[in-house]
């Protein structure tokens, strides 16, 4: 199981790098899909099969389809590199490195000497998640759904103004 985790983690990191470094938008979108699918595999290794499948259905299967759809509609070709910001060029890489080191240090302090990815989800089955959502977290769940409804209505109102 450990070896599978390292394989999928490596795939996720490489695909994420490729997503940032690619010049063609479609390739970036495809790399992001690979990242999302490898994350789903990591969830699966942690015993959270419901979350893993939802990750693929919602993010890779629905949201990213819209991304690809828009890229195709705009027919976006290769990006030309811009030379506007010198600060970003010189400070970007060191800042990211510093940020990464910071994350590693904090994680090491918070979770010392965990021998590997052995954290098992308490109950990752659909029934377990359902119990959590509709018993312990019923109010946040309903509030989130109202928030999403408001966002949908807002999008419809904004789109209507065009006509």
């Amino acid at each position: 199981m450990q070896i599978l985790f390292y394989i999928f983690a490596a795939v996720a990191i490489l695909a994420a790098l490729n997503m940032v470094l690619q010049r063609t938008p479609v390739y970036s979108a495809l790399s992001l899909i690979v990242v999302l699918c490898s994350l789903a595999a990591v969830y699966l290794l942690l015993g959270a099969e419901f979350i893993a499948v939802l990750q693929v259905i919602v993010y890779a299967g629905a949201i990213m389809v819209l991304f690809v759809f828009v890229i195709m509609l705009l027919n976006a070709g290769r990006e030309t590199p811009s030379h506007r910001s010198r600060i970003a060029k010189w400070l970007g890489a060191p800042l990211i490195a510093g940020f990464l080191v910071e994350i590693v240090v904090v994680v090491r302090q918070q979770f010392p000497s965990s021998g590997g990815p052995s954290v098992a989800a308490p109950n990752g089955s659909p029934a377990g998640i359902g119990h959590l959502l509709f018993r312990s977290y019923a109010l946040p769940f309903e509030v989130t759904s109202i928030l999403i409804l408001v966002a949908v209505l807002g999008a419809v109102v904004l789109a209507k103004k065009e006509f």
Partner: protein
Amino acid sequence: MGTFSDTAILLLIAVIKITVVLVVLLTAIAYTTWLERKVVAHIQARWGPYLVGPHGLLQPLADGAKFILKEDIIPIEADKFIYWLAPFLGFVLAFLSFAVIPFGEGFTLYGHPVRFQIADLNVGLLYVFAVTSLGVYSIALAGWSSNSKYPLLGGLRSSAQMISYELSLGLALIGTLMMAGTLSLRGIVDAQSGFWHIHGVNTWVPHWYIFAQPIGFFVYFTSAIAETNRVPFDLPEGETELVAGFHTEYSSMKFAMFFMSEYANMITVSCLATLLFFGGWHGPGFAWLPGIVQIFLPVFWFCLKVFCFMFFYIWMRGTLPRFRYDQLMSLGWKFLLPLAMLNILVTSFLIAWHG
């Protein structure tokens, strides 16, 4: 050593299962093309393929040879990598769904239970949805990478259509899932054994969910036809407007892969309809038959039900005209989606009422 040989046997069983399923599936796909040509021909008062083998039965082999031998043309303006990736993606994803589909009960071999299913996931149905929801990339990317206007229009149409109909497809099944109380495909079929009892009286009507969820089934199968891009919803490849839609620029084996994934998807959808609404492998059993036939009888019932759905697909292709694009969209969003939601509402009320 004992555990090692156990693992080895389990692995061997899995490999044998995968091989059998793939071989049967590929043969089934090849002969569905033959069946489609024959049935559509007879609907239109023609004979269909007749020259290669008796009643054209060797036609799929001839077609296969032709696909392999034809020149593979790649448009000069195409995005080579994605143009190559798209058919492979569609092909692989179309076959991945069959990993969780149960074909029958199974039997015990030297103390090892052998089930007619490659893997029994407790989120089996959602797994099928996850795999099929990725299938849209194959079509969208094929349309985009060809770098030509008709494939692009076909790809755009198909992604819009598949996103729209995925919603009603999923919502249509929730009523069934609430009744079965599980997402495992084997569990859903097990919940459909026996007969319906009304107030403790046996009605002798099989305990299939089609009798409790007719609206769910109607919405599911209509959306499924749209998801698989078949007549009357085959707008992504409508030849009167888009030449051949997303696969206009594809030739040779790459075209054959799109063709095969379309048929594999049709079979997946028919399998799901059988498993969720028509009791899977349950059917009349005959106690006087010998044991080996008893084992394979459920598989026969399953295949028979799937075959009926495949025939229905072809029948519709032979009889119905194509929808207009705006009609397709309003049917999905303004009719099927509210109907599926109403079905969920009524089902959940009834379940809460009866406990």
